[in-house]
């Protein structure tokens, strides 16, 4: 088409026009790709670097009892004395801007404590497991699985912590390789925690319950109890419909889900039946009332910590602005050796200890 036009107008000013038409022709002939401009593209999702196949396929290896004992002996010898690989910087003073590592814990149940004024409060017990540092990512090194379009501002370092040592012969070779650098026994649970660059810990360091202090606030992240596919009454607390007065087969149903006309569709976010629970939730600002040093157990306020008994949760220092700790925290973690003379339990000031004499309300003078 462009050639035909050029023949007709091949006179004085024709050259320029020809040029223009030629350009047009190129545009027309090439396949036009118009991309929709996306302001915030969906984050790229990728498995983290430590994500490998964990357990080996079950197989009957027919190991004799003597050999089994021998394997256990080797495991014992190899992993019995783990020491931190490097010096822990102990001279940094904690400030509210610094972020310490969190820990992996297990929710082990609920029981009441009494305050000194006689009030009963329910507390949840969290057992801090044998947390060891497995890996340390520098701020520039850590490549998060979810990345926004702008990248990450205010980059933090990252620690990979493992808890609950397992039998290494049951894990895959790849998985065991994760623990080679730190020298700790392969762990069943792994979790990463962002830390300020100077709060990083050397590999193989143990983080215990003494990492936290009585009276401070925590954020606890865990998966809620899985309740399966639930109706609207249980899932969203709807009222349901009357039991009688001519109601048939719609006693627990939601009823109307939208109008007609212009809004004649189901609007996004309409509360309807569906899967309930098994979602990550954070209980924010729960207070530590008591710490047991021997068994690494924390008593925290409230009975609404997400998850069932014996489920895993992650504990962080609280980010709530009004619940910042008053005293400086042990930074980067609790390092002092504990004597045997110090009491097993630490209590908050407000809590009545079970070993104390009974509460008496005396007359005020």
């Amino acid at each position, binding site marked *: 088409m462009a050639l035909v036009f050029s023949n007709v107008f091949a006179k004085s000013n024709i050259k320029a026009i020809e040029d223009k038409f030629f350009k047009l022709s190129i545009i027309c002939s090439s396949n036009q790709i118009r991309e929709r401009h996306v302001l915030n593209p969906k984050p790229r999702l990728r498995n983290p670097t430590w994500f490998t196949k964990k357990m080996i396929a079950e197989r009957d290896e027919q190991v004799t009892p003597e050999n089994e004992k021998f394997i256990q002996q080797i495991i014992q010898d190899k992993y019995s004395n783990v020491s931190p690989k490097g010096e822990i910087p102990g001279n940094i003073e904690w400030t509210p801007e610094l972020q310490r590592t969190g820990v992996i814990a297990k929710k082990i149940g609920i*029981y009441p404590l009494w305050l000194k004024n006689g009030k009963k409060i329910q507390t949840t017990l969290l057992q801090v497991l044998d947390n060891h540092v497995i890996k340390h990512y520098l701020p520039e090194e850590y490549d998060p699985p979810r990345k926004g379009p702008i990248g990450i501002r205010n980059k933090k370092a990252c620690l990979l912590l493992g808890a609950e040592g397992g039998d290494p012969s049951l894990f895959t070779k790849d998985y065991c390789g994760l623990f080679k650098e730190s020298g700790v026994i392969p762990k069943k649970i792994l979790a990463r925690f962002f830390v300020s660059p100077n709060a990083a810990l050397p590999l193989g360091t143990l983080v215990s319950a003494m990492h936290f202090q009585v009276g401070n606030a925590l954020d606890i992240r865990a998966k809620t109890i899985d309740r399966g596919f639930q109706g609207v009454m249980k899932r969203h607390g709807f009222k349901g419909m009357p039991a009688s007065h001519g109601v048939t087969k719609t006693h627990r149903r939601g009823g109307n889900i939208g109008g007609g006309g212009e809004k004649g569709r189901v609007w996004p976010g309409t509360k309807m039946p569906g899967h309930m629970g098994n979602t990550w939730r954070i209980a924010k600002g729960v207070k530590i009332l008591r710490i047991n040093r021997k068994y690494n157990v924390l008593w925290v306020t409230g009975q609404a910590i997400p998850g069932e008994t014996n489920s895993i949760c992650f504990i962080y220092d609280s980010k709530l602005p009004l619940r910042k700790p008053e005293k400086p925290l042990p930074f980067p973690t609790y390092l002092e050796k504990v004597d045997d003379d110090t009491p097993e339990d630490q209590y908050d000031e407000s809590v009545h200890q079970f070993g104390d004499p009974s509460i008496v309300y005396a007359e005020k003078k």
Partner: protein
Amino acid sequence: MLCLRKISKTTKGLRVYSSVVKQANHVKRTNINNLRKDVLEYRHVYPEFLPDPNIEFRNTLREKLERNDMLARRSHINIPEFYVGSILAVESSDPHSLGKMHRFVGICIQRQGCGLRAQFTLRNIIDHQGIEILYEMYDPAIQKVEILRLEKRLDDELLYLRDALPEYCTFDPNMEPEILPEGSPIPINETKVKLKPRPWLERWERKNLLGVQDLELPEKFYKKAEAVAKPWEKYDLMKEYRKTIPEEEQLEIFNEIDSRLQKLHVQGKKMKKRVFVKPTKLA
């Protein structure tokens, strides 16, 4: 548990030796059985030391810590052995009347909860007004739990006393404690309670109560009770298993706290004796 295991280990070794040793072995084993019986008796005396049988709430470490706390509390207050049907006096410090002790005497009509959550309900009639108070066993505001009459009744719960004639749960607040001779079994009070005429709080004819007199109801009530009864449930082994803690676990739990409980028992007795030194009221 440890000592048991040690003994059993030694018994294994002894089997090789002569018959004389075997006899000694036999004596030891009977001792073990006796010990076992004593320890298993604890489940009636200290039922709250057994954990909740619901498997979803179980965790051995939590249960251990809970037991330690319970024993720590018991070192300051003597919580005596009592049963549903025993008459207790509870003294507690009251924030509403400062500087005074609040004392309530009544019959224990219900015990519930396990661990630090254990509770019991006392009932009495004062000035022709039925009154019930629910107490927590490990509440630190409780100063003293005194047992005035130690006995059992025919039923596990005496909630029907709410519908009974008032004389069956009227007790004198200044009642003197009745002391059982050392080592005697707990007496079972076999009084049959007479209920008021209907309406009642519950349908007592359906509860298989042993401690009530004839309910004097029309025949249709008994027929209906028979129709809704579930007599096969007592043969449901799985239900029984879900409701109770197995014997082996009970042994483990009570063996762990046995020595401390006995120490507390002795301590409690000493405290009791000290109370007796007080001059009693003259008639």
